[in-house]
């Protein structure tokens, strides 16, 4: 069987997989990282979003072998070892940006990528559009958008530029 070598949350792994093994299957079933969820399995819902080399991707629509040599970050890799939450996680908690919590890991991973890639600031409309690939069946979007806007200054270490408001 082919082997894939990748770094997940800072730790290097070499794992035997099939050609058809999806990245999300590798994460959940081989590495036991079940924080990454499978919702629709058709690349619509975004519950499976992880970062591959810093870009958010749907891990149900990527082969494990395509991640060979890559650096992957999952929801488990965000908090510090002492348990301190990532600012995005903290703001999701602060703003009650989750109800059932199923979409939350993917939502948080997409939101972090969105904030990272918009150092110039984000409008509410841009946040909503930027989370287009993540579905919340509790329809709790409003608080999610508030949480992302609140995380922006914490992640960039400054207040949101006025032009983006």
């Amino acid at each position, binding site marked *: 069987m082919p082997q894939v070598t990748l770094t997940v949350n800072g730790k290097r792994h070499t794992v035997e997989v099939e*050609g058809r093994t*999806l990245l999300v299957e590798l994460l959940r079933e081989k590495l036991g990282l079940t924080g990454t969820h499978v919702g629709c399995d*058709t690349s619509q819902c975004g519950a499976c979003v992880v970062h591959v080399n810093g870009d*958010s991707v749907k891990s149900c629509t*990527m082969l494990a072998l*395509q991640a060979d040599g890559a650096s992957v970050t999952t929801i488990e890799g965000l908090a510090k070892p002492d348990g301190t939450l990532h600012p995005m996680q903290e703001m999701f908690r602060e703003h009650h940006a989750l109800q059932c919590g199923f979409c939350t890991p993917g939502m948080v991973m*997409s939101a972090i990528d969105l904030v990272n890639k918009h150092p110039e600031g984000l409008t509410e409309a841009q946040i909503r559009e930027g989370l287009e690939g993540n579905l919340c069946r509790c329809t709790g979007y409003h608080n999610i958008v508030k949480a992302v806007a609140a995380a922006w200054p914490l992640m960039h270490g400054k207040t949101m530029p006025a032009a983006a408001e």
Partner: protein
Amino acid sequence: MYDFAYHKPASIADAVALLAGDPEARPLAGGQTLIPVLKQRLNKPSKLIDLSGLGLNRISVSGNALSIGAMTPHATVANSADVQRAIPALAKLAGGIGDNQVRNRGTIGGSLANNDPAACYPAAVLGLGATVVTNKRRIAADDFFQGMFTTALEPGEIITEVVFPLPVEKAAYMKFAQPASRFALVGVFVAKGPAGVRVAVTGAGQNGVFRQREMEAALTARFAPDAIANIKTPPDQLNSDIHGSAEYRSHLITVMAKRAVAAAA
């Protein structure tokens, strides 16, 4: 998903040899369409040949052409300063495909080779009169798209880059997105450039992307939204499905074309 052997060749020659040696082998670009198709067991390739190791992800501008490598993801095209400067409408189109996660993986070459009748890129490539370059030849956009999910590509032929002629004087793309999939229910790309005035329509045609030549003639005479306000596209050649009737799509083509002309002017 049925199992398959995965190969990631390091040269175009190796990729072509792997494809030539096995008629059941298929190339893999970004996988944002192919992997969902495989999950549904609609296709059973013996091998997937991953093209991501061939260095086909460069964007360059020369005096009279913008060249985009086939494996360039949509997000890279959308955020490229070169593309934004040379053809802003193309950067905007790329930034409106799918969602952020799809745009981080999906590629221009994969989209063109698949030729989904509701994909965005075929409208830009046809509307801008681009050239699809493969490992074997250069194919004009007018010859490349040959019907729904059908292109001029031969078995084992790989798209290496897409070349857009410059300067583009005016261009805009307007998409009426299907609300769930974000694919175009109707999308219209209007451009005025080295290839003349062109109007390319995606999402609507029974045979995939097509040029609306009556609108092209009217816009060549006068580039203004009201020049095409009364031009109707016959519904008998258009798609009709649960998302919209052929008559509805016909109506949308004129509306989207007018908006595109207004945005481009």
